[in-house]
C-alpha cells in the first residue's frame, strides 16, 4: 500500500529535495497512514538504503550526505511529534566534537541518521572535554560515546578520545560504554582509531550511524 510513497520518497531523498520529501510524507498522512508506519516503513528503510548506496559508492558527494541526513532527521522529528505513544528507542549515544575542535557538521550527519534510526542522541556540541563525555554517558545511561575530530591534533590529543578511553578504563566502564570516532583524520589513516583507543570508526557520517547502532547492540543485545 505504501509502495507508491516509498518510491517517490526515496526519489526525493536521492534528489536531496526536502520539500518534495515532506510533500510525500504529508500526502501519506492525509491518506490515512500512521506516523509510525511512515517512520518504520518509509523513513528508516530510506536511510538504510542510503547507507547501502553510500557504502557502494565511495565517491558519493559529501554535500548529499548532509542533505540526506537532514531530511531524515527533519521528517522523523515531525513524525515523532505525531506518534500515539513514544517510540521504543534502541539505545542512547552521547555525541560531540573533541576538546579543542569546533567542527560540528560531521556529527550533525551522524545525529540526523541516528535519530531517524530510533537512537536517542545527547549532543554535547563542540569543544567537549573527556570528563564531560564520560560523566554525561554515565548519568544518561548511554551505550556509546561518539567523538568527532576534524583535525589531527584534536583527534590524537590526550584530551580527546584518548582521554575518554582513560576515564572509561579508570572507572571500569569499558564493557558498558563503547567509544566510536570519526572525522577527516581517520580517513587519512584507517588505523588511527586504534591508536586513539576507539572501538570503532566510520569513514562518513551516514555509515557512522550504522557503526554506532552495531556498538549499541553489542552492549545491549
Amino acid at each position, binding site marked *: 500500500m505504501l509502495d507508491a510513497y516509498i518510491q517517490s520518497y526515496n526519489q526525493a531523498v*536521492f534528489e536531496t529535495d*526536502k520539500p518534495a520529501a515532506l510533500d510525500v510524507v504529508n500526502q501519506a498522512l492525509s491518506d490515512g497512514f500512521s506516523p509510525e508506519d511512515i517512520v518504520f516503513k518509509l523513513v528508516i528503510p530510506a536511510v538504510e538504503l542510503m547507507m547501502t548506496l553510500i557504502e557502494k559508492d565511495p565517491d558519493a*558527494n559529501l*554535500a548529499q550526505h*548532509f542533505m540526506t541526513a537532514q531530511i531524515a532527521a527533519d521528517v522523523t522529528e515531525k513524525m515523532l511529534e505525531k506518534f500515539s505513544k513514544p517510540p521504543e528507542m534502541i539505545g542512547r549515544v552521547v555525541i560531540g566534537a573533541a576538546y579543542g575542535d*569546533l567542527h560540528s*557538521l560531521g556529527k550533525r550527519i551522524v545525529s540526523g541518521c541516528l535519530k531517524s534510526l530510533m537512537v536517542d542522541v545527547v549532543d554535547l556540541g563542540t569543544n567537549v572535554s573527556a570528563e564531560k563525555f564520560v560523566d554525561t554517558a554515565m548519568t544518561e545511561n548511554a551505550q556509546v560515546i561518539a567523538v568527532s575530530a576534524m583535525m*589531527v591534533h584534536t583527534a590524537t590529543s590526550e584530551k580527546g578520545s584518548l582521554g575518554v578511553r582513560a576515564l572509561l578504563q579508570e572507572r571500569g566502564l569499558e564493557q558498558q560504554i563503547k567509544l566510536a570516532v570519526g572525522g577527516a583524520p581517520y580517513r587519512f589513516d584507517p588505523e588511527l582509531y586504534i591508536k586513539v583507543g576507539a572501538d570503532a570508526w566510520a569513514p562518513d557520517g551516514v555509515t557512522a550511524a550504522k557503526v554506532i547502532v552495531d556498538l549499541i547492540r553489542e552492549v545491549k543485545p
Partner: protein
Amino acid sequence: MTTITPNAGQTASQASDMLATVSSDEQTLRVLLKPHLSVRQALDTTDLRVRAACGGLGTCGACLIQTVSGEFNPPTLAERQKLLPEDLAAGMRLACQLRPHSHCTLYLEHPAPHSAWKSLDPTQLYHASGNPAISEHFYGVAVDLGTTHIRLSVWNRQSGRRIGTRYSINPQVAHGADVLTRLNAERLDVQDCRRIGQQAREAIMDGIRDILSRDMGEITPVLAALGKVLIVGNTAMLTLICGNSGDSLYQPENWQSPIVCLPTDADAWRQIWRTPHADIDIAQPLAGFIGSDLLADLLATGITEQSQPMLLADFGTNTEIAVWDGTNLWASSVPGGPAFEGVGMRNGLTAEAGAICKVSASGLQTIGDAQARGYCASGFIDAIALLLDKKHLKPSGRFAEPPTEQGFLLQADVPKSAIFASDIDIFQRAKASTAAAMAQLLALAGLKVNELDRLWICGSFGQHLDLNSAFRVGLLPTLPSERISLLANASLAGCEQLLLNPAGPNLLNEIVQRARTINLGGVFEYENRFIDNLRLQPMPIEEFQ
C-alpha cells in the same frame, strides 16, 4: 571619504577598445586595449610583458615592439630620440608610447623574462593627494598579503604618486601548501611556519623590486629611502610573516579575540630587505579568524560611513563577510575552501592566461584567448549554471548521467574543460557556507536582503564573475545588478588609504569599535542554513523578504 567609484558589473569592453594580437616566439595573446592605456600598460597585466626600466616615459628605450598591422598614433618625441629612422620606418615602436587606433597585430621579439608579477588596473585603487610633511624616506609600500595572492603598490608618499602595482600568486601556494587547510589538518611545525613566513617576506620584496626595476629603473637607492611598509592580510598569514608560529590560531578561545601580530625580528627583517629606514607596520587583524584585509575592504568601500545597510563579502580561501546595519558591523568568516581561488579543483586555476573565465551556451572563453588549461572560479560558476540549465546536473549536485573517468567534458574537444563530481562537492560546500553566513549575519543584524542598499563583492574572484550565474547557483542573493559592486583589489585600496591618508588609522579604529565578531561555528541556526544552502538553486527568497 572613499575615492572609489562603485563599479556595477565588471569593466565591460567598450566600442572604443582595440583588440591587439600580440605574439612572441613562445606565445600569442589577444589583449583588449583601453584608449587610456599604452600597449606596455596593457601587456603589464598579462604573462607577456615588454622589457622595461623606466616608468613608461620613453626614456629607457627597452620596450621595443614590432607593429605588424593596424593603425597607431604617430611616433612620439621620445621614440624619435630613441629609435633610428629606419627602425621607425620598419614599424619598430616603444610599447610605452604606442596607442593603436584600430585592431592590430604586434610582435615582441625580446619579451621580459617570465615573471609571476603582473600589474593591476589602478582605476579602482586609492587616489592620494600627497603629504608635503614627509621630508625624508618618502617611499612607501602597501601590501595585501593573502593566502593565495599578494598584491602590492609602491608610492612616493610625499607627492602622492603611485609608482607601480603588482600582484602574484603567493609562493607558498606554488609549494602546494594551502596554509589554512594545513592549519586545519595538522599543526605546522615551527620550521614550516618560519619557512612560510620567510617566503612571504621574500615574495613581497621580489614584487617591490619588480616595480622598482621596471617602473623606476633603480632599486638600491629607493630601498634606502623606503620609510614605511604597511601590510594587511588574513590573520594566519600575518602571524606567520611576523615570525610567529601558527600555534595560537589553534586555540578556539583565540578565534574571536584580537590576536596581536607584531614582527619578532624587525631589525633582521629590515636588514634582509636592505630597507634600513622602513617602518614595517602590520595592520592588526580583527580576530583570530578575521584579518585586517576585511578591515581594509571596509575602509576602501567606505561602507561604515553610510547610513544605509550594506553587505560586503571578500571571497577567497577564507571568505570574510561583514554586514553593516547603519550603526553596527557584524563580521565573520567561513571556509571558502580553495573553491573560490580556483585551486584544489581537478581542473582549477587562478585567474591567469588559459583559465576558462566565462562559459555560455555558445562556448568557452579563456583569459587572453589562450588555450584552455582549466577553470578559474568565475568560469566554473558559469559552467555549473549552464549544466543546471541544461539538466546535466541536478540541484542535489549529482550528474544526470554519471560522468566517465575523464569527467564531464563541457566541450568535447577540450580535455581541460572536464568537471568531476568531487569538484561539484567542494563548490557546493563553499557556496553553502558563504550563502548561509550572509543569511545568518543578516538575521543577527535584523535585516533582509531587500533592505540592502548595496552588496560589495571583493577579491579577485569578482573580476570575471557573471552575476546571473552566481544568482543561479545560489552563491549570491538575487539583487538588481545596479545594487551590486565588484571591487577586485579592495584590500589593497584600503591598505593604500591606510598608508597615505593621515586620517586612515582613525577611520580604521572607528570601524574596529563598531565591529562585532561572530563565530558561526557555535550558531545552531547557521548549520541548518548551511545544509539548506547546499542545493544548487537560487537562494530561497523567503529568507530574504
